[in-house]
């Protein structure tokens, strides 16, 4: 995928916070990478004969433990390098959140992978910061992804093909991506039960 017109104005920022019982610690704060799935999602909605606007909202996430999927911010990823599967999230993961599986596609209709594990963020965790800015707040609790070294995160559109999710798997595009590991060592955040992680993802259009 390539940078698209929307990128000329849209910019994003990711902040990752470690949340302990008695204090919190910002461990990452930097811009993100907007992917062309965001523009495709908007084009799909504006030309849609679809039924439900929530299909074009962006509430599903993936965490990963791969290397940086971008190369100098000139190549925009289609997928996370190494997304977590359900077993990596853990049996007691994110009890407050829904989980779903889906198929990832690129914009040329090619299926990249199926059965991907996604976390579903309730819409109440999506804030309107101002008339041109949206923030997603993903809370990864103490019971989730423990023992994993997290390095990457992706934000995806919900269901732009308006699949009947009671009968079919959703198809989705990645809309934004960020590698938050150490750029030189690749070392990420080793997740334990001693803290939760909060991802504050802001996109300004």
């Amino acid at each position, binding site marked *: 995928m390539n940078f*698209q*017109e*929307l990128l*000329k*104005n849209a910019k994003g920022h990711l902040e990752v916070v470690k949340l302990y019982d008695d204090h919190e610690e910002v461990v990452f704060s930097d811009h993100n990478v907007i992917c*062309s799935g965001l*523009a*495709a999602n*908007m*084009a*799909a*909605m*504006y*030309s*849609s*004969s*679809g*039924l*439900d*606007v*929530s*299909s*074009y*909202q*962006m509430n599903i996430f993936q965490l990963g433990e791969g290397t940086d999927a971008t190369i100098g911010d000139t190549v925009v990823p289609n997928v996370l390098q190494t997304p977590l599967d359900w077993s990596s999230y853990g049996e007691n993961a994110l009890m407050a959140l829904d989980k779903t599986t889906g198929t990832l*596609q690129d*914009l*040329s*209709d090619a299926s990249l992978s199926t059965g991907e594990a996604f976390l579903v963020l309730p*819409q*109440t965790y*999506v*804030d*309107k910061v101002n*008339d*041109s*800015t*949206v923030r997603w707040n993903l809370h990864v609790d103490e019971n989730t992804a423990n023992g994993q070294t997290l390095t990457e995160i992706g934000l995806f559109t919900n269901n732009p*093909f308006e699949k009947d999710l009671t009968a079919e798997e959703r198809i989705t595009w990645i809309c934004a991506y960020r590698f938050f590991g150490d750029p030189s060592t690749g070392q990420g955040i080793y997740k334990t039960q001693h803290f939760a992680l909060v991802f504050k993802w802001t996109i300004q*259009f």
Partner: protein
Amino acid sequence: MKGNVSIYMYKDYESTLVYESENLVVDGAKTAVVDMLTFDRPVSSLSNLEDIVDPNNFTIAAMSLGPSRFDLDNRTETLTESVSGTNNKFPILAKPHDKTLQPVDTSNTFGHHLNYYEFSSQVEGINQLTDPSVYEPLLHFYGGYPKSDTSNANSRSFIDKNGFIHLNPDMLKNQTPSIDESTNGVIVSSVGTVSGIENQEVEYIFSLSQSDFEGLWDNFGGIDTLGLWVWDRKYNARYIGDPPYIPKGVAATGGSGGKHPTSLYNFEDVKAFPKFKLFAKRIVFPDGLQINETSYDWLTIKWKIRF
């Protein structure tokens, strides 16, 4: 987002390009995107849920055409003064924070061609129409768009009193939309197949009849500005209520295209009329849209938005 406006003159389905330029996507477009992404879906037990979550509430819903600021001002100074398109002055340049096509004042709060001309302070709206599907102002003059017996826009009932050209309620979204459909309001292309999404482009098309263009040209300054609009959901939620903000269209009897089943105009309370927010605009330089031909069928505006 970027956009491109092309205007073609059609005669017997043969097209000639008469104007082409990029548009300006204004701040209202960002607001529309944010509004969609942060919309909180109501509980599923609502009986009108389908209307509330309709994606069309969040996307481009109308087009408007306007003259330059000079012509807007001049038109309101005296009713008898004719403002031909050949006399117009340069319009005010477009800026990202613009909310209208041209600056507004108390006599024209929309900044583009209205479909009525209010000449008396006692009149506030258009009431009690005998045929709600055809525009017949009782206490106003017609605006730039001619009377319904000569105007395609008014006879087919797709333009409201405030000059917003609505979507053709009977259109079929597809990758190669029909020009015929665009004579009944604005139509929207579809990306159609998944592979069509690659160019991330959506096209809005509207065809203005020769009589409608001449109505705008002869007395109201012609066309110097064009705009695409989304629903103003905040205003409409306050004054209109839940969507749909206007009655959904039905196919016209015996032909293509859709009249709205009840009027776009018959809102007794002016405040109850749904409003729009500007999404993108184009100022036509130099000196407005000039048409030298004396005989043509349609001026077709093709407006591409690239996300």
